[in-house]
């Protein structure tokens, strides 16, 4: 069975541009999570989507946004890119259970902002 997939693998942008990152969850999973792993800052929660709705977001500015499509795949958009947005962006998916849910991670998208 295929795991979580993310595209692109690498993305290079300049300050002020917009970046779009994509994630396909494991078949049967309805929840998608986005995390940012920036150097020195660890893994920080960005967004959680379930059944097409945004359920929760972390402490990030509104220029970080996303959506979940009817097939449960998801997009993360980062507007007005800043240098500090350079990071590995990880997507995870789960069954969307209430409590005791297991998140499975994709390989990540490495975003570099010049």
């Amino acid at each position, binding site marked *: 069975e295929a795991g979580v997939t993310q595209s692109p693998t690498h993305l290079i942008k300049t300050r002020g541009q917009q970046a779009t990152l994509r994630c396909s969850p494991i078949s049967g999973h309805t929840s998608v*999570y986005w995390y940012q792993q920036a150097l020195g800052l660890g893994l920080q929660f960005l967004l959680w989507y379930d059944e097409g709705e945004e359920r929760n977001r972390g402490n990030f500015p509104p220029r970080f946004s996303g959506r979940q499509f009817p097939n449960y795949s998801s997009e993360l958009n980062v507007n007005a890119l800043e240098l500090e947005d350079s990071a590995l962006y990880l997507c995870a998916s789960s069954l969307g259970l209430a409590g*005791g849910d297991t998140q499975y991670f994709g390989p990540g998208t490495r975003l570099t902002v010049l």
Partner: protein
Amino acid sequence: AQSVTQPDIHITVSEGASLELRCNYSYGATPYLFWYVQSPGQGLQLLLKYFSGDTLVQGIKGFEAEFKRSQSSFNLRKPSVHWSDAAEYFCAVENGGSQGNLIFGKGTKLSVKP
């Protein structure tokens, strides 16, 4: 607020030696706990999880972890380390209520000496 502490930033062990990675959590109720491993530039792979029941949990690749409520700990162990175990290890707790996200420790980087 929930939190996870991994006191050791970097650990070096000899191949064949035993390993213990420490994890302490702060959480009011019964936690859902996880250990993930990340190879350089890769996503996170789930090693094991604790939801309830037996406090000694077996995972993949010969890893195990023990949940100790009295010490708020969930330490990861392996009796004999292999060179391929060199990676970064993250302990995580599921955020409570309907938050959905995982809260991660800062990670412990494991180096293995031949």
